[in-house]
């Protein structure tokens, strides 16, 4: 086994008896112990539990039972997912005062049911509030492609652990781009599914009306396999959808014939630097796309997403801020307090804008199946870099990395970041966006780009 072996290959080897799940879990845990010092992507390891779960998978193989499509595949979770028997950090020291989780988060349970083995929890911005994974309590996660650079956030530990070859698969959450941004900067595939498609039960929520859960992987096939295991109704999540979804693994390799593809311009071009625009053009050329569309009001959509995020997060934390203010990350605390002070009129106006923007994109996707944009305005900034230059504009790194991802989260559309390489040799994602519940279309495009060698997961064994 090498660090680039995919989850699909690993599961096939476990099912075929070529390697045991215990060997894979042990290897992943050993890799984390030996190599994560350079990345700081992992905050917790679940050694005993992982080896017990792996032994159970091996017994199933030995007994001739179906161990599941992800048999023996090690995976990590952003540390806001409950893992039974462990304390759920959510990037905070306050959460460590709570008792260990009694049960697994639903997403963890579903991956385990598919045979996967949870081996570790990963670093994140405190309470998912940020795009950089710079955490006052657990340190900064570094980018495997260049250790001087940010991994992005807030699911930066998950993306870095996958890109760095510590695990082939990880779970993240995405409110304004927190799966897609680190996937773009680290060079992994990352999916924010349709709102309500994957259960958030057993996760520490950040913004109830915007939070999504999804997978990060090094191939489109791995991402699809994980998504198919995760998707589906869960009565424990009040926004869970009972609409049946189309499995995505079977449609990989089907190509893009018949799909109506277009490149999003306007806001999505103006907020991407030359390198980010170039990767989109490269993907479009490969796919034969020459159509461009403007998505009206996307700039207002970003503003509305920021207002809703701050207001909901501020209210969620208000009671705790009254008594534990000093225990918050100093970089996160002022934003949460400001959100708690925001007049309700602005929140309601942002929700109305959200409904209007939803109509805009519904009209758009009546005529388009998949839109292409850059995932992030630029490649990974240096750790400590405060601003970034995007087409002559100086933007704050901590505020602006999600400007291309936010509009789609605001209206719950599925969006998949495909790993490519920018002019500077650093990873840079192309974002694919579809109508609600059309994840299968995203996977057809992603797997086409991957098969053509245009999309390649980055990272290195550190």
């Amino acid at each position, binding site marked *: 086994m090498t660090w680039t072996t995919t989850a699909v290959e690993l599961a096939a080897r476990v099912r075929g008896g070529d390697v045991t799940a215990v060997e894979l879990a042990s290897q992943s845990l050993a890799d984390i112990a030996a190599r994560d010092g350079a990345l700081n992507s992992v905050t917790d390891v679940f050694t005993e539990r992982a080896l017990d779960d792996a032994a159970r998978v091996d017994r199933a193989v030995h007994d001739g039972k179906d161990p599941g499509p992800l048999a023996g595949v090690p995976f990590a979770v952003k540390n806001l997912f409950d893992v039974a028997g462990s304390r759920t950090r959510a990037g905070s020291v306050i959460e460590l005062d709570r008792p260990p989780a009694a049960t697994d988060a639903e997403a963890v349970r579903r991956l385990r049911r598919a045979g996967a083995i949870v081996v570790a929890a990963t670093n994140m911005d405190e309470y998912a509030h940020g795009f950089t994974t710079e955490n006052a309590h657990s340190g900064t996660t570094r980018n495997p492609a260049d250790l001087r650079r940010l991994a992005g956030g807030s699911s930066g530990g998950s993306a870095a652990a996958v890109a760095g070859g510590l695990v082939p698969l990880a779970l993240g959450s995405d409110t304004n781009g927190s799966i897609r941004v680190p996937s773009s900067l680290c060079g992994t595939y990352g999916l924010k599914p*349709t*709102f*309500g*498609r994957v259960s958030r039960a057993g996760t520490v929520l950040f913004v109830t*009306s915007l939070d999504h859960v999804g997978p990060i992987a090094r191939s489109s096939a791995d991402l699809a396999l994980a998504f198919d295991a995760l998707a589906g109704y869960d009565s424990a999540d009040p*926004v869970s*959808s009972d*609409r049946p979804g189309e499995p995505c693994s079977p449609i990989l390799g089907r190509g893009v014939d018949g799909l109506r593809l277009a490149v999003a311009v306007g806001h999505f071009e103006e907020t991407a630097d030359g390198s980010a625009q170039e990767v989109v053009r490269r993907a479009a050329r490969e796919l034969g796309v020459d159509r461009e569309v403007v998505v009206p009001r996307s*700039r*207002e959509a970003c*503003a*509305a997403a*920021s*207002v809703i995020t*701050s207001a909901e997060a501020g209210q969620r934390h*208000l009671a705790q*801020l*009254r008594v534990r*203010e*000093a225990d918050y990350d*100093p970089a996160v*605390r*002022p*934003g949460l*307090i*400001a*959100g*708690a*002070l*925001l007049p309700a009129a*602005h*929140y*309601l*106006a*942002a*929700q*109305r*804008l*959200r*409904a*209007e923007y939803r109509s805009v994109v519904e009209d758009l996707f009546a005529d388009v199946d998949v839109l292409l944009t850059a995932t992030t305005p630029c490649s990974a900034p240096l750790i400590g870099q405060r601003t970034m230059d995007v087409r002559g*504009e*100086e*933007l*704050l790194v*901590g*505020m*602006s990395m999600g400007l291309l991802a936010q509009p789609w989260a605001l*209206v*719950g559309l599925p969006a998949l970041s495909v790993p490519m390489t920018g002019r500077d040799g650093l990873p840079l994602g192309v974002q694919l966006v579809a109508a*609600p*519940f059309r994840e299968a279309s995203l996977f057809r495009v992603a797997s086409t780009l991957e098969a053509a060698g245009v999309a390649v997961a980055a990272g290195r064994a550190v």
Partner: protein
Amino acid sequence: MSATERGQDSVDDRTDGELAAVLTAARQVGLAIAPGDLAAVSAHLSLLLGFAAVVGDPVPEPAPVYRP
């Protein structure tokens, strides 16, 4: 994109009036802001009000609860 939208409003640009208003608003919801945080909270609030200005005043329908 305005400076406020870009998030460039500096903590150093806060006026005494803005800081006092933030303190008063915080007290009204039971928050005591540490002196070292006051300017940062004010800058964040200014940024959010800038976003609110970009959102503007959409058609005044009742606020929907988002469902997929």
